[in-house]
């Protein structure tokens, strides 16, 4: 069995890594640095998100066109306005008696306690 010393191992490793590295041409440093310097961060960001920006603009344009071309909402005739005014002034609901409101409420949910509510016959008289 051969003995591999540290020195011979290091030499073989250096030779191997060097040989593998020299198989490929080293790219031009100046060109790379010039390229990096011409790539402003904002420009890069703009280029990276150009597609997204264009898509968002297209969506906004489509929505705007759709809304501008949609038929206008029909206006209520004059008779409807009078009916609406009448409906809004009509009371369909009457508050229960003060006696019912004065009953104790639940501590947790702030709901009226129904255990003390009057029988239905009496409640019916409210309406």
């Amino acid at each position, binding site marked *: 069995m051969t003995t*591999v010393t540290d020195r011979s191992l290091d030499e073989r*490793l250096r030779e*191997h890594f060097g040989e593998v590295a020299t198989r490929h041409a080293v790219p031009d*440093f100046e060109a790379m640095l010039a390229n*990096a310097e011409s790539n402003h961060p904002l420009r890069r960001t703009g280029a990276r998100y150009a597609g997204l920006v264009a898509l968002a603009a297209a969506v906004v344009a489509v929505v705007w066109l759709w809304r501008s071309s949609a038929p206008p909402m029909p206006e209520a005739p004059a008779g409807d306005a009078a009916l609406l005014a009448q409906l809004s002034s009509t009371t369909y609901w009457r508050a229960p008696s003060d006696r019912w409101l004065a009953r104790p409420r639940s501590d947790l949910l702030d709901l009226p306690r129904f255990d003390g509510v009057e029988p239905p016959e009496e409640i019916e008289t409210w309406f």
Partner: protein
Amino acid sequence: MNDGLERNPLVSRRALVAHHADAFAWALSLTAYDAAAAADVMQQSYLVIVDGSARFDARSSLKTWLFGVVRRCAHRSYRRLRRDAAFVGRVAAEPRDDGATADEPRRTDIGAALATLSRRQRDVLELVVFSEFTVEEAAAVLDISIGSARTHYHRAKAALRERLGDDGD
């Protein structure tokens, strides 16, 4: 003459030029010796150096810092490629019945021995032996503890010594 970069004033162009070839060799190693990928990693590295995203504060040597930047760019851009390459490398290095690897029958050279090491062991070994870093600097490049780097280095050496010694029988 001050030739520092505008957003990285402590990084001089001359120093970058001096380390360019070594850094490219390191990028090659990180990208499984894909020259185009390595060039892309170098371009990304110079981009983050020029725009100041990676800032040199002279806490380490410029070379150590540069190699660390290259490693981070390679990891960010080529994580998937490296995983695939590592898988392919593992499969290729698996010994067959006759003791040869899949792609190169009866190859017993140092390249085959290196292929049996873990990625981290190979990285530490390459940085120390080829790129002439100390183990402490290699730890800084790889962003691992010095103890861990030292362990990787000695285990890698021992594994290679054993494998290459056995091959000489």
